[in-house]
């Protein structure tokens, strides 16, 4: 939530939203239409409009037309997006009736942070597109697709990988246990998928710059003759690092 979000009251937000809806239909909004839509009387409308114009969110002359300033448009768009996100979630995912969904969204839209809305949107897209629904991704991300762009070909690849995983687990009799460990614990020849980079500061950034990023595949190739730095293959090249640094890299063993 931005600072502006915080200082706006619920009714102010409703005013902005309504103005935006009206402006989208015709170039300008009139105080009368606003009063009609919000079901309030004309005098309280003109008071609120004075207030909004004082804050620089709308352009308004008494008895004239109302338009939104760029800042006002931005805020109103955000509110509308929240409203639509909530409504769509109710309709598409929860299967609620549209009118009821609209009403609930109207009341909820003011108290929900942007982060929650974003996750909700992610979840909606995920539920609608991913056939893997039900497999919780153990990354603290909730249900959402890791690939930014959805294409059916990618989905096909992903699902087949998922099936293979299940087969492997069944074959190993290891139904649900995740083998999360650190890179320094892997033996030469073993592979892992990077889960997390612990550690701090410049060295962590350096390791990330070298391509050691969450989700990439890494294979331990060998250990140096004197036993310390290890040689791993990542993104098709050889990277060497000491075991102390490798101990800060969490990986999930890949069989």
């Amino acid at each position, binding site marked *: 939530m931005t600072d502006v979000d915080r200082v706006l009251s619920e009714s102010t937000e409703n005013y902005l939203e309504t103005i935006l809806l009206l402006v989208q239909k015709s170039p300008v909004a009139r105080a009368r239409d606003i009063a009609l839509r919000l079901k309030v009387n004309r005098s309280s409308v003109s008071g609120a409009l004075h207030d909004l114009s004082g804050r620089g969110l709308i352009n308004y002359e008494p008895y004239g037309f109302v338009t939104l300033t760029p800042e006002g448009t931005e805020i109103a768009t955000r509110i509308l997006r929240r409203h639509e996100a909530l409504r769509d979630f109710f309709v598409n995912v929860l299967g609620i009736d549209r009118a009821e969904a609209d009403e609930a969204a109207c009341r909820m839209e003011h108290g929900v942070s942007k982060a929650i809305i*974003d996750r909700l949107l992610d979840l909606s897209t995920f539920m609608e597109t991913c056939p893997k629904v039900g497999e919780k991704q153990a990354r603290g991300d909730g249900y959402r697709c890791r690939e930014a762009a959805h294409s059916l070909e990618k989905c096909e690849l992903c699902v087949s990988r998922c099936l293979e995983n299940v087969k492997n687990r069944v074959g190993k009799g290891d139904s649900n246990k995740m083998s999360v460990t650190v890179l320094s614990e892997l033996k030469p020849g073993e592979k892992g998928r990077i889960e997390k980079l612990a550690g701090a500061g410049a060295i962590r950034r*350096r390791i990330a710059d070298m*391509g050691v990023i969450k989700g990439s595949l890494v294979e331990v190739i060998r250990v*140096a003759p004197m036993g310390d730095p290890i040689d791993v293959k990542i993104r*098709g*090249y*050889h990277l060497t690092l000491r075991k102390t*640094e490798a101990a800060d890299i969490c990986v999930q063993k890949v069989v």
Partner: protein
Amino acid sequence: MSPAKERFTMALAGNPNSGKTTLFNCLTGARQHVGNYAGVTVEKKEGTCIFGEVEIKVVDLPGTYSLTAYSVEELVARNFIIEEKPDVVVAVIDASNLERNLYLALQVMELGVPVVLAFNMSDLARERGVEFNLELLSSLLGAPIVPTVGSKNTGMRELLAAALDTARAGRTARAPDIRYGQDIEQSLARIGACLDASSHKSADQRARRWTAIKLLENDAQVAARVEAPEIHQVVAAERARIETVLGDTAEMIVADRRYGFISGACQEAVRSTVESRHTMSDRIDDIVIHRVWGLPIFLGLMYLMFWLTFSAGAPFVDWLEGLFGWLRGAVSGLWPAGSESILKSLLVDGILGGAGGVMVFLPNIMLLFLAIAILEDSGYMARAAFMMDRLMHMIGLHGKSFIPMLTGLGCSVPAIMATRTLENQRDRLTTMLVIPLVSCGARLPIYALIIPAFFPEAWRAPMLWIVYVIGIVLAIVCAKLLRSTLFKGASVPFVMELPPYRMPTVKGMLIHMWERAGLYLKKAGTIILGISIVLWALTSFPRMQTSGPHASPEERRAAELSHTVAGRVGHAIEPFIKPLGFDWRIGTAMIGALAAKEVFVAQMGIVYSVGADGAKSETLREKLRANYSPLVGFCVMLFMLISAPCMATIAVTKRESNSWKWALFQLFGLTVMAYLLTMLVFQAGSMLGIGVR
């Protein structure tokens, strides 16, 4: 017809080992020079290349993996692009290692300069079964792509043509704007708005975006340029927000998104047809850095390097010695026999005897540099660092310190300059201070003079090896000592690439070797020649006016030399160096060696050509054998190995550490240590009767 030529500046940026230098050599040929970036000591290579009517200045930026503010190289590369505004930047990309190489290229593009991508070693990538859809990739990345093969000199015309087109267009038509995702973009917009409201307003949208990204990434250097406190407040708030929303620091998310963008582009435009898990390079590594065979092979290679330097160089040295002998004879022939002419003495004894005595070791030096060039260019040096890191870590240093130390075998000056690759100042200073203990090429002439004089054929190579090992062991001990006293602190992490092995190109090696041999020759031609003349003067003046009642000419000459300045100084310090087994002649030569180690040889030559009968053409070695025991010979080598490095080393230490304190510490610390250790060895040796004839 002399049309006003167009001039362009073109910078080469790329990862280490992307073949950038090979490409640079291809483009500029012999028209290049090496210098330093102003203020910092990172190597700067510049050259020119003519393409049609256009003169292009090519600048080789230091090889980096990223453009953060964490290392000097990265700062230099990025500041060059921002401040010097080259007309076009060629991002050199190792096509067989696309993703990590593109990561840097993407950051270069973000700086808002016109960029051309050179897909270098594209032949190698094709051999490995990688297929590129260059057209698609080019449109995804928003920059023209030219496939090149530096080692075969192909694709250069196309590269230059594309670079010129891009430079003329001013900006890449549609450079990509990587979208960092909603949360980051929102932060960038807020920081950007804040920048616009302040005095950092910039007309260029891309520059503004870049500054905002860097601020969000917590880049110390960019942050320092922004004064307004309110911007810092906004940045801090946004960083905190990103961390709560996305669960990691902004710089990590940014790195993640960049790699994400690259992976996406590569997935669409690159196809690997052959699943090659085990490349040639991997197979070599299976043997060369094997857990058991790795170290013996490493030690064997080092031994081979010294054998090559010493034994294989011997015939050339003999030939050069013959040449200088002939020259001296020819020059003295211009004067009547028995002439006492000062000019003749200056030419024959001073110049030819002094500088010539150093020049004859040029074959040794060149072979050593050749061996180092092969190790470096083939990719073995990184393996050496990998294998030696455990050892280096034990003494509190970084495996990368091993490379400057190994370079120290050639010359301490470039070695100390090579410590720039170390990011930690404590590591850097420690490495710098102990590097002179690693026996440099300039000390080789001393060993080359002394070892054959005192030791039988079979003992010569092992003896040389022993001297080098002593130096390395001492360097380790001193580093450990320094690291646990003066430079206490946690050691630096070791994150390094093992580049694929490559066949070194003859051209590359020759350029490499010539750069360094050239430095040696320049030293011989200037400093050493000057010192030789000064020392000749010191050993000739003041002249004795009356010839006293001496029985033989030898005695008369000895008395004459005692009378000179050098003789007097040598005599004066004789009581101090007596416990080391040295006489005043060696003392005199050691003073000369302060200027440059190899002057010791020149000086001994002069001292003896004066002190003995010049008519008999005995070689210097025979004279040494007649005058000293093998133990003294060994002590001379030991003292010269440890004692004060040459003036050039002291000067470069001063420059690199930016303080006279460390330079003087190095000078006196090493000399005191040399004195004590040599005394110990000589006294013990004399008592036990080892090597006393």
